[in-house]
């Protein structure tokens, strides 16, 4: 995947990648759409079977290829379709955010939320909030692979 931006500063819009669990947040995104809830168009969604499927390597690759922020959305703890995937994900991303912070990437660029299939409004609100957060942080150059 490549999402290189045309680097024209004045036209900059945050580019955000969301990994959404098929069993909850992805349905939440669908519901937000069905309800025609207004939300900014900055988020591209990749559907994953579980937030536990999201490997930090996916996230780093996204930043290498030019996104400004990543959202990982999964089922509320206790609601995982596979019982425990999101509990493992929670540990993983608590730690990974702190690693990001340590190497100098604003941890706000990697956000995690639990959003159920019934929470269309929460999905839309989260997308708005994350977009605003990333807009405030500005374009990301860190970790970017400029060589391809």
């Amino acid at each position: 995947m490549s999402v290189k931006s045309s680097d024209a500063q004045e036209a900059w819009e945050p580019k955000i990648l969301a990994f959404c669990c098929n069993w909850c947040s992805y349905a939440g995104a669908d519901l937000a759409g069905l309800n025609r809830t207004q939300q900014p168009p900055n988020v591209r969604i990749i559907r994953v079977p579980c937030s536990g499927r999201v490997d930090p390597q996916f996230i780093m690759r996204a930043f290498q290829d030019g996104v400004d922020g990543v959202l990982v959305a999964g089922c509320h703890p206790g609601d995982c379709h596979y019982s425990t995937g999101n509990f493992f994900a929670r540990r993983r991303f608590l730690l990974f955010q702190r690693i990001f912070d340590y190497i100098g990437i604003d941890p706000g660029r990697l956000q995690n939320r639990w959003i159920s299939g019934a929470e269309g409004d929460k999905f839309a609100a989260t997308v708005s909030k994350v977009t605003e957060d990333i807009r405030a942080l500005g374009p990301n150059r860190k970790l970017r692979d400029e060589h391809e």
Partner: protein
Amino acid sequence: MSDPSGEMRELAKKLLENGEVDRIIGWEKGNLWYQSPPLFITRAEETDRLVFDDFAINSLVTYLLDERDSGKKTGIFVKGCDSRGLVRILQDKQIARESVYVIGLPCSGKKDPRQALSSGASESSQVPPAAKCEECLYPNPVIYDVIIGEAVEAKAKGDRFAAVKEIEAKTADEKYAYWTSQYSKCLRCLACRNVCPACNCRECAFDISKPRILAKENNLSHNMVYHLTRAFHAAGRCVECGECERVCPMGIPIMQLNKKIIKEINDLFGPYEAGVKLDETPPPLGTYQTSDPEEFM
């Protein structure tokens, strides 16, 4: 500390003669006074080459992985830090406990050949102890079949997270500038991976070219991903042997990231030390508590 070489040689000889082991891995004296490289022997007459001096700093345990399918039995010498690496390999089920005869050596600290060179010393007594030994919490082997020598006491040490805290105090851009200055030096020689007891996968994600999971390009972006990925794969599993940093030809402070991860794991999920107990629950990222910190609501 008295020189245990005599006892080491005697035991190694006996083990090989009895056919109790097929080979022995230890250290021998190198060509230069500040070198004691690994020694692999299969014949009893060679056991006189074994030494355990100030420069027997290399951990030998990852060599066990080379023979993991051979069905051979290895007699191996381990210091305190090495023994934790051995526990790592055993817990990860890379080798069977029965395939090793573990000879423990309490260790009062080793010296780094590179420091011997850079300090301009002409004999061992002039060389300072290796950095990792100054922070060592486990000078005595945590696993062994037999132990040679008296247990030594862990020295009272400074804060082993001091360097981490120093970096934490920087601003985001200072941190990034610091790490990029380090990672841009990386040659991607993979020495740090090859020596690591936690990097014991049969096929490493960095070696797989089809499908391309991780890139092989040597540039800053990919170097950073390499380091973050490797550290994350070892998260909760790193035994703090310091081998990665010792072997890095570019002097990259690899432990500063590993230690940060250890520090955070302790804070987030409770104190944990990898590779200390053989029969224990999965490492922190291989398990969870429903009561873990919740920040994602």
